[in-house]
C-alpha cells in the first residue's frame, strides 16, 4: 500500500532502543574548533554505543569552559553545574541518592588541578564510582587567557609573559592518590577518546580521563602539546584501546598472541590494549608513574590507559546501602518506629 511506502525508515537505534539523538545536547556556545566540542561528541557516541539510558546518567561540572560543556550532550540526563573546583563533593553527595546511576563529571585543568585539587584528590582516594573527565587545555579560557596549572613551563601568553612554574600532571596526581583508572587522551584522537570513555563507564570506581583539549583562541601554539598541530605531532599512543562490551562475543583470532593485553572489568566487559611499539602493563602503578615522569622530561604526549585496578571496592561498596536507591525510600523505611522513642528516652541519663 502507498501509505506503507511513505513511512520513513526507522532511525537507527542502539541495543537499548535509543537513537543517537536521544544522547544529544544543545548547540555548543564554545569557540569553533574547541577541543571540548570534540570530546562532547565522543561522550555522545560512547553513551550511544554503550546503550546506557540517558536517564541513568547524571552529569556534573565545576566552572570554566569545560564545565559549560555538559549542556552540549545528554539533554535527557540530569545535570548539576556547581561551583569552581567543588564538583567532586557535589557529585559524591548526589550519586548517593541513587547508586544505580552513572556519574559523569566534566572539569577543566584549572577546575581540577588548581582551585579543585583537594576535592579532586579526595574523590579519587575514596574511589567514588564515576567517570571524571578533565578537558585539559593548559589555559584559562573563560577569563580570557591566563596561565592554568597544567600550562607548560616556558609557555608565553599574550598578556602574561612566560610561565616560570612546573606544570601539574593530572594523571600523576591521580596515581599518587591511588586512582583505580587513569588514562590520557587527545581531543584530536576521537577514536581513542571514545573507547576510553566507554571503558571508564564500565569501571567500578573512579575513572580519571585527562584529555588534552586544545584551546584554539588562547593557547594553540604549534610547539605545545596543548595545540592540535603540536598534539598531533607529539602524541605517542601506548597502545590501541578497544573496548569490548560484556555481551559481545570475542574473536581471539583477530589479534596475534602476545600483541594484546586484556583487562576484564567489574561488569564483565573487556578492555583490549593492542601493542604498538613497546610492551606496557597497565596494572603496574610504579611503571605508570615512571613513564609519565620520562614523558614530561622529554616533552612527549603519551596517551592511553596508564593504570587500571578493576576490583578495588568502590565508595558505594563500603556502605551497607539498600538495593533500593536511597532517594526512593518511603517514610516507613526512614523514620524509626514510634515504639522506639520510649526506649531512646530511657537511654538518656
Amino acid at each position, binding site marked *: 500500500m502507498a501509505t506503507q511506502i511513505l513511512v520513513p525508515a526507522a532511525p537507527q537505534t542502539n541495543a537499548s532502543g535509543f537513537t543517537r539523538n536521544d544522547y544529544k545536547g544543545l548547540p555548543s556556545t564554545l569557540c569553533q574548533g574547541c577541543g571540548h566540542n570534540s570530546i562532547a561528541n565522543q561522550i555522545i557516541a560512547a553513551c550511544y554505543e554503550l546503550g546506557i*539510558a*540517558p*536517564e*541513568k546518567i*547524571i*552529569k556534573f561540572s565545576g566552572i570554566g569552559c569545560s564545565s559549560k560543556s*555538559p*549542556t552540549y550532550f545528554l*539533554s*535527557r*540526563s*540530569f*545535570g*548539576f*553545574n*556547581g*561551583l569552581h573546583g*567543588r564538583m*567532586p*563533593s*557535589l*557529585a*559524591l*553527595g*548526589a*550519586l*548517593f*541518592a*541513587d547508586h*544505580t*546511576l552513572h556519574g559523569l563529571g566534566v572539569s577543566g585543568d584549572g577546575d581540577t588541578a588548581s582551585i579543585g585539587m*583537594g*576535592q579532586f584528590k*579526595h574523590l579519587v582516594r575514596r574511589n567514588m564510582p564515576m567517570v571524571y573527565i578533565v578537558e585539559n587545555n593548559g589555559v584559562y579560557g573563560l577569563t580570557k587567557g591566563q596561565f592554568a596549572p597544567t600550562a607548560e613551563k616556558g609557555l608565553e601568553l599574550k598578556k602574561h609573559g612566560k610561565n616560570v612554574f612546573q606544570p601539574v600532571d593530572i594523571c600523576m596526581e591521580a596515581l599518587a592518590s591511588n586512582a583505580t583508572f587513569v588514562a590520557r587522551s587527545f581531543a584530536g584522537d576521537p577514536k581513542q577518546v571514545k573507547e576510553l570513555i566507554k571503558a571508564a563507564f564500565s569501571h567500578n570506581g573512579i575513572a580519571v580521563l585527562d584529555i588534552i583539549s586544545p584551546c584554539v583562541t588562547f593557547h594553540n601554539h604549534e610547539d605545545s602539546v596543548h595545540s592540535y598541530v603540536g598534539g598531533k605531532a607529539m602524541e605517542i599512543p601506548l597502545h590501541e584501546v578497544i573496548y569490548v562490551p560484556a555481551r559481545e562475543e570475542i574473536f581471539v583470532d583477530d589479534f596475534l598472541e602476545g600483541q594484546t593485553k586484556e583487562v576484564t572489568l567489574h561488569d564483565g566487559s573487556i578492555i583490549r590494549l593492542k601493542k604498538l611499539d613497546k610492551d606496557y602493563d597497565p596494572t603496574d602503578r610504579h611503571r605508570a608513574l615512571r613513564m609519565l615522569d620520562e614523558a614530561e622530561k622529554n616533552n612527549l604526549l603519551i596517551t592511553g590507559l596508564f593504570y587500571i585496578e578493576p576490583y578495588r571496592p568502590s565508595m558505594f561498596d563500603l*556502605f*551497607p*546501602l*539498600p*538495593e*533500593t*536507591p*536511597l*532517594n*526512593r*525510600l518511603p*517514610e*516507613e*523505611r*526512614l*523514620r*524509626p*518506629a*514510634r515504639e*522506639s*522513642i520510649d526506649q*531512646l*528516652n530511657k537511654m*538518656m*541519663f
Partner: protein
Amino acid sequence: MELEKPAGVNDAGYSPKEQIINDFCITFSTVNGSGSATANTTLLRALFKMGIPVSGKNIFPSNIQGLPTWFTLRISKEGYFGRLEKDDIVVSMNPATFSKEQEYIVPGGVLLYSDAIKLPVTRQDISVYPMPVNEILSAAEVPQKLKDYAANMVYVGILSELLRIDFENIYQALDFHFKGKEAAIRSNYGVITLAAKWAQQNLKKNDPYYVKPMNATIGKIMADGNTAAGLGALYGGAQFVAWYPITPASSLAEAMHEYLPILRKDPVEEGKETCVIVQAEDEIAAIGMAVGAGWGGLRAMTSTSGPGLSLMTEYLGLAYYTETPVVVWDVQRVGPSTGLPTRTAQGDITFANFIGHGDTQYILLFPGSVKECFEFGWRAFDLAERLQTPVIVLSDLDLGMNQWVSEPFDYPDQPMDRGKILWEEDLDEILEKTSDKWGRYLDIDGDGIPYRTLPGNQNPRSAYFSRGTGHDEYGAYREDPEVWERILTRLKVKFETAKRYTPKPSIKKMANARIGILSVGSTDFPILEARDHLARQGLATDHLRIRAIPFDAEIGEFIRNHDANYVVEINRDGQLKQLLTIEFPEHATKLRMVARIDGLPLSAKWIEDQILSQEAK
C-alpha cells in the same frame, strides 16, 4: 553487688533554718585531660537521680591535656539552669588556679582542695577541707596507670559525704557511664567509698550546704543538645550526613554515628542502613556533599561551627539559588576568626542570615532547649524540603555540649513533609494538568515553590540542568534582565510562604508587663531566672523567644505592645537587635540592646542588672 554505703560525717550541726538545701553552686577546678569529666558527670547524674534540678557547665580550654578546666554544677530546687557568677563551693585540684578561685567563693562558702597543693588559703570567711588525695589513693586498689584519673573520684566521695548525696545514685551514675563494665565501676566506686569513709572519720562538717531528694526530675531525661539534635535528625529520616570535625559541633555527627546502627536499620532489606555518614576532607566538601545529596532527593545535612560556616558560604549561595534543600547545624562558638573554640556564643546570627554574595535569604532556626534540638533535628528537613532551600539551625556550645535536664523527646507529631517532588507518574500528571508546561523553576501554585524532579526519574521529560548561573523557569541558561529579576522576585515570594511553615515564637507573659524581652536559643534559661528576680523587685516582664527567621508578624506585635523591648544575646554588636531593626523599622526606637560576649553563658544577674540600669535612665 552489695553496695557499701558510708554512714555520714560528723556534723557541726547547722539548724534547719541555717541550712542551705538544694540551692547552691559547686565549681570543680581540675587539669584538662585528667578524667575530671567522668567524676563531674557522675555527681551531676547522681543528683539528677535524686530528683533534684541540676545543671552542669563545662568551661574547658582548647587543649587535650594540661590546661585548667572548670566544671560548674548548679543545684537549684527552683529549676534555674543559668550560670551563676559566684561559687558556693569550690573543689580545687589544680595549683595553677588555686589562689584565683578562692576569690569567687561566697562568704560562708566552702573550699575543698587536694592537700598536694601547698599554697596558702587566703580566705578566712569560708569552711576549708583539705583532702589527702594521694593517701586515700594509695590505700585504694587502683591500677597505677589509672591513679591520676581516680584522683578525681576522691572528691566525689568526700563531697557526697559532706552534702549527703545518695551513694546508690552515685553507683547508678557510674554504671551508666561505664556502660555496665564491672571492673571500671568497682574500682571507681571503691575509691569513692574509701574517700567517703575517710571523710566520715576525719572531717567535721561545718558548712550549711546539703542536698535532699526531691521529685522534680521524675520522667525527665538528661542529654546534651548535640546528641539531641543528631537523634532528632535520625528521627527526621536523615539520609546523608557529611561533616568535618570542629569544636563544639563534632559530637553532633558523632552521636549520629553512634545511634545510626541502632535507629536506622532498614526494616525491609536486612543488614542495610538507610543513612550514610561521610567525614569529608573539609567543610567546603562537607556542604558540597550535602548539597549534592539534597539535590538528589536525600534528606541531607552537615554540622559545623563558625569557621566551618564561613567556608560553607559559597555553597549555601548555590543551594539558595538552585533551590536545593539542605540542613546546616551551626553550633556556635566565640568568633571572629578561630576565636575561643571552646567557649559559647550567639555571634553567627547576622552572618547566617546574610550568608553569601548577592541577595540571599535563609530559613534560620533557633533551638532553645535540648528537647527543641531534638524537634528541630527532624523539623529542619521538613522545612528544607517543603521550601527547597537551605535551613540553618543555630545552636551553641552551651546548649550543644553540656548535659541538661530535659523533658523527654517527643516522637515527631506529623508525617514527613517531602515537599513538591515529582516521580515518573506525578510528572505525567502535572504535564497533563498544565498542558505540558512543567519547568523546574516554574511557580505553578503561586506560592513561590516550584515542583522538582529527582535524578533517577526515568520519565524522559524529568531531567533538568541545575546551575548557579542565570536560569529561567525551565532551567535554561538566561542572561535576560527580566528573567533574572523575575526569578529573584519569585524567590522572595517563597520566603514569604516560609512563614506558614516555620515555628512560631514562644511567648511567656506576666500581668501588666510594659517591658518586653526578646531572645533566641539558650539564653532562655538565665532569662527565666532574671524575670523572676525582676518581678520580685516589682518589674513585670513578658518574654518572646524567637524560634525562626523569617520573623513572624507576632514579633512585631509584641514589640509594639511594650514600652521597651530588651534584646538579650551573646555577642558584641546586638546582632538579633540589628535584624529586628531591619525587619521592624517602625519599632526600632523601642528596641534596646542587652548583649555581651566574654565566652561564658549569660548569668541571670547580669541580664537583670542591665535591664534595671537601662530602665533607670
